[in-house]
């Protein structure tokens, strides 16, 4: 009778498994970029063929004009960029109790030669004004900041303080 050869035990050495996965882990650790994109969000208006002019009462509208030198004009007053927020806050807050169709509209208009940086700081100020009004309102009603509210409450605050920013086209774009 032929003696059967003893089959050696077939095992995969797993001792180095941890090392290999460590290497892979290190690679992905190094190559991961964690930073989140941050910025000012905005929704552009759709292009409509025939535009209808709607008259908006002047107390509902705040015109923010930024010229090419970086001067800011709000409803006829020249002010520095960082004061836009304080100018707008009280006006936005005063419209909290009014119906939806009477909320504040902030219109931001620039010149074609305006520096982008100034435009961003103006837009930033306007958004800050809205955010602070939202925070104050939610503090008064729920005792929490806007960001800590749940979805339903946030929707409620958004209803009371909607962010309506109109980006007007610079003068020379219009025909």
């Amino acid at each position, binding site marked *: 009778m032929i003696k059967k050869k003893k089959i050696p035990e077939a095992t995969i050495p797993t001792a180095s498994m941890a090392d290999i996965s460590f290497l892979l882990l290190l690679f992905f650790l190094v190559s991961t970029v964690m930073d989140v994109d941050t910025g000012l969000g905005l929704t552009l208006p759709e292009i409509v063929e025939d535009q209808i002019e709607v008259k908006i009462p002047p107390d509902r509208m705040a015109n923010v004009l930024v010229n090419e030198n970086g001067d800011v004009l709000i409803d006829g007053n020249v002010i520095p960029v960082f004061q836009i927020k304080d100018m707008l806050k009280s006006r936005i807050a005063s419209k909290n109790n009014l119906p939806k169709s009477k909320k504040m509209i902030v219109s931001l208009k*620039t010149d074609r*030669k305006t520096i982008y940086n100034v435009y961003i700081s103006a837009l930033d100020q306007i958004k800050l004004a809205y955010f602070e009004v939202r925070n104050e309102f939610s503090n008064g009603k729920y005792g929490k900041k806007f960001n800590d509210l749940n979805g339903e409450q946030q929707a409620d605050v958004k209803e009371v303080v909607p962010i309506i920013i109109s980006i007007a086209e610079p003068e020379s774009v219009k025909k």
Partner: protein
Amino acid sequence: MQFVKKRANTKTEIPTASMPDIIFMLLMFFMTVTTMREVDVLVDFKLPEAKAIEKIESKRLVSYIWVGKDKRMQINDSLVKMEEIENIMFKKKESLPEVIVSLRVDQGSDMGFVTDIQQELRKAYCLRINYSTNVKI
């Protein structure tokens, strides 16, 4: 009389059997969050700063437009001209309807140029935009 030192005869070993599993879990996490596609940015730009910023929830929805100091524009991996934006962005909008266009514009650019880009985006129905900014402290 000699004192016999009493030694604890418990084994002092950390069980390492589950180590690969733990490492693998970490590995899986990093593999899923890593986005491999790093675009070479060909234009030179410096972002403006702002305070009232918001985070973009999903990176997969974002499509970038870079504008450099020398007014060159880049979409994806190539430099583009103003007339080409509409076509490129319309295709993006078709393949990804919820696309958010992130404008990474140099802070010294003039608004006329930015407005032109916005007009092109409006024609391509890419209406959700985001002015990319750094956080002002």
